[in-house]
């Protein structure tokens, strides 16, 4: 019987390579076979990088054969969200406008991951330019939730989360701007981390909202996420906003104790809009944390209710500039048959971008316009400071904050596409952390029956629920420890 790696974690890969039980090539082939079987179902990957992956796997095997010490991600099949550039492999950003765009360079995070031995098996589907919460905004079709193919994977890193959840890849890189790693991780039952802003280089991450964009790891365990973060974190001279803060060994920090650890429970995150199924699970999660010796403290983050408005002003303002470069002049799609320069711009962008991207560009252009700048953009910046201050005040009293990752489990495909505002609200618990630039992780926290499916059906689908843990700036080590021990203790059934 052929090798099945669909439940493997990074340590399984390493153990089997070190013991010579199997080879990187066999692992890579197993991953590719799984992709061939699952990708047609859930549409997680836009591009499968088979040839390149096998060549790299062969190189790892040569390393192993020569007795070299294997690096921490040796032979680990990973998926990379398609907003992160990879030299020689097309990077579409889930958009028609970059459908055939092949970058001439590789993002720092991917370079570092590959230097640590990882093997990129495919580019993961995502909402167009990372704008979306359900992966329905991809020009390459929605990603389907591996636990219920009629439901969304979450977004925008839906492909990364679903690829890991369905066993195509052992781990993945996503990007999180307003919840885009954490929310799909929660929907797909995997672990997803948004590191502190500046912890991981953004060089090569195609910008959506530069002051909010983060590359973040997705894995089947907190430990895998820690391994991946250790590989990609740290200052990058090519990203001025990456921080020169030393990178601890996140893996060895996982086992410290949690005695006296204080966890803040923000009351605003358990208010109206939270589905009862998720509430039940997250409350059980809090109890489990209590059993680990953590002390629960009720806190308040009073400006939470403004986060959504604040986010959609700042993010769209930045996006309106960041996406200006897709004009058909130098690369990417160019609409045929334009009679003038301005017509070429209009047609190219009109045909190349999807509806949500256009909506956000228009919104962002509006909030930066003369006469509106102060009322929207400037005010939003002030609110952002207040939201950040909410967190710093809270962190004077607590070591971490626990909350739901998303208000509901995965919803049905098409359920929210008619109402953008309702869609925006599915990020309501992840946006504040993004605005504050603090790290946040979503860890599986049991299962909930799908909302609205009623209890009478004989086949009640159980869907994953995630608990979100938020930490102080650059406090990933303790955040991961908390998440790891929660997971080790069995989380929530």
């Amino acid at each position, binding site marked *: 019987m052929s090798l099945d790696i669909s439940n493997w974690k990074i340590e399984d890969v390493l153990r089997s390579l070190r013991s010579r039980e199997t080879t990187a090539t066999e692992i890579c082939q197993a991953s590719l076979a799984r992709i061939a079987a699952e990708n047609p179902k859930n549409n997680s990957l836009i591009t499968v990088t088979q040839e390149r992956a096998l060549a790299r796997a062969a190189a790892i095997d040569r390393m192993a054969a020569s007795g070299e010490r294997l690096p921490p991600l040796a032979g680990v099949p990973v998926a990379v969200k398609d907003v*992160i550039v990879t030299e020689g492999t097309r990077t579409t950003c889930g958009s028609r406008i970059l459908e055939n765009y092949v970058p001439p360079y590789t993002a720092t995070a991917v370079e570092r991951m590959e230097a640590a031995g990882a093997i990129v098996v495919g580019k993961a589907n995502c909402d167009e330019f990372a704008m979306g919460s359900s992966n329905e905004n991809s020009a390459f079709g929605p990603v389907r939730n591996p636990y219920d193919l009629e439901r969304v994977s979450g977004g925008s890193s839906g492909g990364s989360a679903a690829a890991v959840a369905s066993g195509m890849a052992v781990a993945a890189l996503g990007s999180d701007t307003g919840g885009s790693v954490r929310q799909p991780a929660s929907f797909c039952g995997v672990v997803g981390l948004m590191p502190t802003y500046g912890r991981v280089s953004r060089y090569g991450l*195609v910008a959506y909202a*530069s002051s909010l964009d983060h590359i973040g790891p997705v894995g089947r365990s907190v430990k895998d996420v820690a391994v991946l973060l250790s590989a990609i974190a740290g200052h990058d001279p090519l990203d001025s*906003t990456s921080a020169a803060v030393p990178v601890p060994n996140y893996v060895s920090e996982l086992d410290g104790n949690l005695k006296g650890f204080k966890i803040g429970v923000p009351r605003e995150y358990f208010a109206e809009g939270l589905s009862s199924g998720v509430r039940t699970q997250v409350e059980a999660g809090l109890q489990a944390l209590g059993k680990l010796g953590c002390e629960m403290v009720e806190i308040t983050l009073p400006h939470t209710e403004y986060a959504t408005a604040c986010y959609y002003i700042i993010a769209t303002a*930045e996006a309106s*500039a960041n996406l200006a470069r897709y004009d058909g002049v130098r690369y990417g799609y160019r609409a045929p048959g334009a009679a003038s320069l301005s017509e070429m711009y209009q047609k190219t962008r009109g045909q190349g971008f999807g509806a949500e991207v256009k909506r956000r560009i228009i919104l962002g252009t509006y909030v930066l316009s003369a006469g509106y700048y102060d009322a929207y953009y400037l005010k939003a910046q002030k609110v952002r400071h207040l939201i950040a201050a909410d967190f710093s005040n809270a962190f004077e009293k607590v070591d971490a904050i626990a909350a739901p990752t998303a208000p509901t489990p995965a919803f049905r495909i098409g359920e929210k596409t008619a109402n953008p505002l309702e869609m925006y609200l599915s990020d309501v618990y992840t946006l504040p952390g993004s605005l504050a630039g603090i790290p946040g992780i979503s860890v599986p926290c049991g299962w909930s029956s799908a909302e609205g499916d009623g209890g009478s059906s004989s086949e009640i689908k159980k869907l994953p629920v995630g608990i979100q843990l938020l930490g102080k700036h650059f406090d990933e080590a303790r955040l991961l420890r908390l998440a790891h021990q929660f997971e080790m203790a069995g989380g929530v059934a």
Partner: protein
Amino acid sequence: MELTRDALEIPETLKGKYEPVIGLEVHVQLRTRSKIFCGCSTRFGDPPNTNSCPVCLGLPGALPVLNREAVAMAVKAALALNCRVNSFSRFARKNYFYPDLPKGYQISQFDQPLAEHGWIEIRSEEGQAEGGPQEKGTKRIGITRLHMEEDAGKSIHDGFPDSQDKSYVDLNRSGTPLAEIVSEPDLRSSAEAYDYLTRLKQILEYLDVSDCNMEEGSLRCDANVSVRPRGQQELGVKAEIKNLNSFRYLQKALDYEIARQTQLLERGEKVVQETRLWNLEQQKTVSMRSKEYAHDYRYFPEPDLLPLAVSDAWQKEIQQTLPELPDAKRRRMVSQYKLREYDAEVLTASQALAGYYEKVAAAGADPKLAANWVMGNLLGALKAAGKQIGESPVSPEALAGLLALIQDKTLSGKMAKSVFEEMLSTSESAKTIVGRMGLSQITDSDQIRDTIRNVIAANPKQLAQYKSGKTSLIGFFVGQVMKETKGQANPQKVNELLKEELGGA
């Protein structure tokens, strides 16, 4: 309304009635080795699109990293222009679409520029002093701000077989560091604007922060021009004039625009706020369709760059690298060498010229004589040969050697000129040439007197005419004596002795 060519002349009465108000926006490329946000070369003239990378091509995912050398140069310029350098400034995105702007926005500075509140001094007839310790005949022109930004690429609309229906883009220039220097609307004539730009360029050249080459585009100038009735406090409606790519065009375009606006006002018409282009062929400013240029640039802080911090220590360090600036050098040279103001002005036009002059003086030459020779014979010869001062075939020491021979009366001025010609072509020392050509001035009175007597004896007719009152014939006799002595007789002596001899003969 368009002006005819002759209408360019504004009658003196109107000049007295209206006052032009001009401010200049000057862009200079900073001469860093690499671009402002990436490591690509800034070299001019390389094959199109060869000096480029993901950052300056604006590829997806690329990020800018600020070049410290560019900041140092901009700070240096700001300090030399008497600006206050802000300890924190910010980059901002200026949004507009154009094919040679690869990101669809230019990284510039907006509400928090690198430096503000500077000034430079220009010459002005008005000498209007609004307080401040400026010299008489000078005027202080305020500099509102100096900020940093990246240059765009170049659109090439002609020169290709298919230029009819295609434009090409060269992004070699994209990301070249620029300093934009914005003046206050303190200039009151095209001549003042010309002088301001000349002095600004001179300072930047002294600092060696820019090539300041208008043809290659490393110095570019736009002007804001308005006209108001004299005595009126509020400013008139302004037009922005672009495409002023030489000093001559600047002055011509301003003169044209001032005349145009003056006549509009005089006729009771309104000046429209708009951007106008200087059209070289038509020799006039032409309106750019205002709709196309009615930009809302939607500036906002650049999230990819941290605020720019310039510490006091760094500022001090840069301050210490400032050379002696043109004004200071001119003042010093006037007092040190007792030069005329005008001569000092000419000699300080460039550091190289001033340096050359000071070396001649340091080698012992009489400072005034040296000034005359450097400004006259040397610059004339170099200009004729199309050479820069640094390429002079006559070294400062060699020139001083020549001047020494004039000072000790070995050579007359005229002889010195021919020796100098020889020096230019052979690069030999004056002494060598004088020796080789057997040149040296005859100052011996007896020798000269002998020649004079011979000349008088040979020209009895002229002598008679002289005696009968036609004293202007003295020139004839001088000429004959100089001819006989092959020009080597000391002309003063010749004159003196001739008068004696003619009087006594």
